[in-house]
């Protein structure tokens, strides 16, 4: 958001609105300003936020049109604007992430076995589905040793070209 630093608050607000609308429209298949509620997480994440599942549930409860399964831009826009302007779901700093992995790496090996990670991810916190787990293992595991070198992974996945 470098461009917004030099602009007035108004322009900043309109830029924020445009960003939100653009992200929203990518999932607005019918071009009628609604998206499926199940896509809201993706949209919010893509706008640079890191809500937890609980955060998402709360957000959805606010903006959903009484369990229709759809969310209309009219309600999404103000709610999301607030989130962005207030930095409600800030990104996770890299070192914090590293600490989190180190907590899980109880033996201080510097890596995690797939079984270890699976256990944590599917049994703790806000558990992954089996599909999510498989994708994570396929994506993050070192191909030869079949373990997850979390330090490397954090750096790899932290590359954020935009936003």
């Amino acid at each position, binding site marked *: 958001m*470098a*461009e*917004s*630093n*030099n602009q007035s608050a108004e322009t900043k607000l309109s*830029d924020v609105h*445009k*960003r939100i609308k*653009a*992200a929203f*429209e*990518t*999932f607005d*298949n*019918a*071009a*009628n300003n609604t998206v499926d509620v199940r896509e809201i*997480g*993706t*949209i*919010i*994440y*893509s706008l640079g*936020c*890191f*809500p*937890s*599942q609980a955060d998402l549930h709360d957000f959805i409860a606010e903006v959903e049109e009484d369990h229709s399964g759809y969310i209309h831009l009219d309600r999404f826009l103000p709610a999301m604007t607030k989130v962005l302007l207030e930095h409600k779901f800030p990104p*996770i700093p890299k070192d*914090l*992430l590293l*600490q*989190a*992995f*180190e*907590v*899980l*790496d*109880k*033996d*201080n090996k510097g890596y995690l076995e797939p079984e270890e990670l699976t256990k*944590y*991810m599917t049994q*703790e*916190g*806000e*558990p*992954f589905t089996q599909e*999510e787990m498989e*994708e*994570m293992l*396929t*994506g993050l595991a070192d191909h030869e040793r079949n373990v997850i070198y979390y330090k490397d992974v954090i750096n790899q*996945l932290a590359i954020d*070209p*935009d936003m």
Partner: protein
Amino acid sequence: MGCGTSVATETQGKRVERDEAVQTPGPALTMKAAVLIQRWYRRYMARLEMRRRYTWNIFQSIEYAGEQDQLQLSSFFSFMLDNFTQLNGNGPDLISQLLDPVVDPWLDREICYSLILVPESYSGPRLSFPLSVSDTNALLAAFKEQQTLHARYVLQLLYETKKLLKQMPNIIHLSTSYTKEITICGDLHGRLDDLLLIFYKNGLPSAETPYVFNGDFVDRGKKSVEVVILLFAYLLLYPDNMHLNRGNHEDYIMNLRYGFTKEVMQKYKTHGQEILQLFQDVFSLLPVATVIDGKILIVHGGISDQTNLDFLSSIERHKVKSALRFPKRSLEQLDIGQSCRLTKRLRLTDGSRPSSSRSHSKNQRTQNQRKRRCGLSRQDSVASTSSSLSSSSSSSSLCSPRTPSCISPRPCPSSPSIPYSINVLQVPFLDSLTSVPLPSPPQNEQEWKQIVDVLWSDPKIQEGCSPNTFRGGGCYFGPDVTQRLLLQHGLQLLIRSHECKQEGYELCHGGQVITIFSASNYYEEGSNRGAYIKVGRELVPRFYQYQVSRTTRKLTLTQRVRAAEGSALRALKEKLFAHRSELMCGFQEYDQNYTGRVSVSEWALVLEAVLRLDLPWRTLRPHLARLAPDGSVEYQSCFEDMGPGIPLPQVTSNLAETLFRYRTDIEIIFNIIDKDHSGLISIEEFRHTWRLFSAHLGVAIDDSAIDDLARSIDFNKDGSIDFTEFLEAFRVVHKLDSKDPHLSEKMSRKKYS
């Protein structure tokens, strides 16, 4: 979270999870850590999904925009065809042979293929008709081994298929009572691997395993010939258990652009023309719809609010050779006939007027203006024919936007005292006028529309029916249209194809419409799955998905997205480059002080306006253009990074861009000029072709520029140009990407030998 290091446990194996008794900050901390990692990872995946989405959008936008271009090209052909029989005065040439076949007596008699000798050295399958299972097995084996079927057998196969199809009605009615289940497949687009995979997973066509293939067997993929031969072979073998619907790509004009024609000509150098001729007939004879148990309707594209199955059954489907040849009657829309009749008898003309005024007026028009004109003239033509069409809200007429202004015909001057009558038109062609007879009586527009609607339409979410401007043909039909049609004919489900879907299939209109698409990895490796449907007597569809992959290792979403994204972005950058001048004009309007920068919003606005692609430009910006330190966009950076190999010698950038933008069109036209496909055309032919082309497109090119261009290319001493190399000079040289069917077809195209 205070501790930065983990607490080591005493023993290796013990994991202190939920043991409350242990005092180490185990459980709560672990949970917190887990949540953090999950949040982080989910966000990463969501961003990937986002990228996948807009990558998808890019591909689709470009694809449909390409199809619209096709409309413009084909209107050019139609005009050529309807008004000229000879391009360069050398007698009937490929255009007329290809585009307007007189019924060739040879092709309806068995002699045509039986005269062809198959050499001893030919090691491919030798078919014997009527076909047996050993023949189809031989074909399967041969195609798996990359063999080509000999032209003689291709012709014979096509001839037999034509005979069979002639007996079939427009709408085929099937029943599940005699079979276990019917399998329905969608677009294949020349993907032999997908077809073989389906046969492998689901079984070969037989009495126990009946199939319906819902169109678009050819174009884009590299094995269209093999795919369609197999399908026709099984059709001949099991005519009661194999059913083929026509798709919008079973159309010789589409084939010219999207690769089938080229594939045939490359694989069959001697007999390619005859083969294409027969394909044209066979395609137009394919049934347009299938109905299962009177309940499930299967068509390639969709329906419109005018679709009427009874009417559809009654028309002569083979008369609609191509959806893109607009009915001859609409020449009236072009004002040729009207202006002759309505205007005064004598036009004040002189011999030099048409061509010179034409090229002069073209100088002032930009691409954008031309597009707007297109919009206007389309409306005009719709308005003028609204009385002749049935009172329909959805007009799917494909008009020719360009021709009204390209031509300024003169009637044959006649004496003022004689009542005005038109026997002959004087139409400008290149540098002179040619007399042509008036076009023959019109083909029935309503019949044409029924077929086009069924082959080209797409479903939409909103109610109603509107013209499908994206594709240039057919309609967008809403759930109410579906509902009405199903009700009207006592149907319960519409199965169609025509659109690529990530999962290979998709439901809409409350489950009343299913889209089924059978070409996996359509845009790029990993872009989508393919699927097929099975229905049994209970008429509940079941979906089977698959994905052809080149590697055995499963690609992660990241890898797939990256691959697809790269491909899409390359295609997008090509578009940017091809419209460089207009884009620069647009940018400079916002940058009066020539700083070289505009704001992100302005940048996005210009792109949207010029390219007319509905894409999330702001999101894509980082991949397309650089930001200055103050956050504004350095718009020149859009055109960088197009790779090495774009020499722009003594040519104006306009010319280079035009060539680049229309290179596919150029290829097609050049291919037609180069009748023997030797890869060589004379300078004279080149000049004529270029003038023709630029006249049609409204690009101002003067002769000296063309000659300079020709001279700057290495050509043989006898004055021939190898236009393959010529095109190479202006094409962006990408890394050889064998996965991209569009690029690789051109890249790997060797000399015609």
